[in-house]
């Protein structure tokens, strides 16, 4: 398992649209990706669950990746977060 931390910069937090993009992105990789923030966690392929975490701007999330090519996937996702959130 590979994981990284990311501080959400989007003013509205992980809101509906980027959450939707994230889900699409993660589904493409086929890896098991888990988000964790303030003791709540959700699988990144689940839109409602990700939104239900209610992650606000300035919060630090931990993203864990399990599966083939974990390191590469984690790297790609980190880029995704930087670009979209």
């Amino acid at each position, binding site marked *: 398992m590979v994981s990284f931390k990311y501080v959400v910069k989007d003013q509205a937090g992980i809101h509906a649209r980027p959450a939707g993009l994230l889900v699409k992105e993660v589904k493409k990789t086929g890896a098991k990706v888990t988000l964790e923030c303030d003791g709540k966690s959700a699988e990144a392929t*689940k*839109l*409602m669950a990700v939104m239900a975490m209610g992650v606000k*701007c300035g919060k630090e999330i931990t993203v864990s990746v399990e599966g083939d090519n974990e390191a590469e996937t984690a790297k790609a996702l980190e880029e995704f977060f930087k670009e979209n959130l």
Partner: protein
Amino acid sequence: MVICEGKKIFRGVAIGKIKYYTKKVNTVTRKRIEDEQVEFKRYEDARERTIEQLHDLYEKAVKEVGEMNAQIFEVHAMMLEDDDYNDSVSNMICNQKVNAEYAVATTGDNFSEMFANMDDEYFKARSVDVKDVSERVITILNGNDTDSDIGNEPVIIMAEDLAPSETVLMDKDKLLAFVTEKGSSNSHTAILARTMGIPAIIGIKIDESMDGKIGIVDGNTGKFIAEPDDETFEKYNKMLQEEKNQKELLNELKGKDNVTKSGQKIKLYANIGNVSDLALVLKNDAAGIGLFRSEFLYLEKNTFPTEDEQFMVYRQVAETMAGKKVIIRTLDIGADKQADYFNLEHEENPAMGYRAIRICLTRHDIFKTQLRAILRASMFGNISVMYPMIISLDEIMQIKSIMKEVKDELRSEGIPFKDIEEGIMIETPAAAMISDILAKEVDFFSIGTNDLTQYTLAIDRQNANLDSFYNPHHEAVLRFIELVVKNAHEAGIWAGICGELGADMGLTRRFLDMGLDELSVSPGCILPIRKVIRETE
């Protein structure tokens, strides 16, 4: 005649027949099914059809209300692709052997409840979206089309609440106004009403017996009148006529430059004092907001507005203006604008008292909260900030050091912001006299002629006994303006007027001669002034 008061969402007047609009409520009954595979297939088909519909709706909404407001329909489609949502429906169909309609309704309710219980306003508002999208699936399961048919003549829509998809689906040519009982000023419907420029009021007790009767929606005051008497009808009919005339002027002048016959240009911005004025700004074709009075945030409340509350408002303004300049004036409380919780002492001479920047420079907490909110919102558009009641260079230096602290804090918290333009109001004779010095430290000047006139002439604006002494065109004030513009240009910055004098069409010629770069006036004055400018040699 029935008069109700509600909360105004969008300005304007509408007179017309009331259409009592009820959602085609899908009555869902729980039924036991025999073949769960057939039932699940029914759900899958309906789900796919709904997603298709949502994509069409998205395309329609992009054209009508813009990409930003249309995105919600993409999110709706994504919700239907959510694993948890689909698992819930499928489990209910397969394990409890219930019909697809019931499974969708229950699943929608559960997820909607989940969002409704969250502590963040944004996420709370998503509960309506889950419900809306679930209703849509059920409608298709029931074999109904989903057109929100409102008939063939223009009507005032009266409804308990409206889902975003319902508002978008309605035929715009037939929509005069919205009146709803529920909904919030942050709801999609409110946003859409603003974007479409339709008068709207929320918080009105609706009544089915009003259907088909004549109604008046006064979006300027938040009044809704059913079955008006002749006098009221005439009064509003006249207002409507005036609005129409204004509209004709708009059609004639919209998109045209503020340029004189000899080619001199000047920017025309709008002064506003509340978010509800935004529609007027757009409607009157302002190039930006030259004065956003932030006081309403403080005056409408019983306690200090939080950073988030302010941020949401500034962000909304910046987003609505979509890249056009928005100049936010920091808090100008004191003098004639008082809020109890500031605990300001009674003053003998409040106009010259503890007000505006003087409060901000002694109570840094209040000032910093506002600056943080403004900086955070800067990411969402083209925001500038300006400081009122400046009299000295030292004040500007203090502001700069506070601004730096705020920026450092945001940076260390990883919160993004833009380096926005900072300007000052020139509204004291002191600032006007030393404007050559001040110009070197700021990005622009905006001349507040109301205070500048009262301080220069030593005439209290509120005292009617002084009317005969008061001359708004006093040469002293005009010379001050001329001096300020000259000093601004020498330092390479721009200068504008945001006081009432800016809208004085008897002076437009003179202002052009002085070389003012901008006039910021109330939205309704923009087109008449544009007309004057275009007729000037």
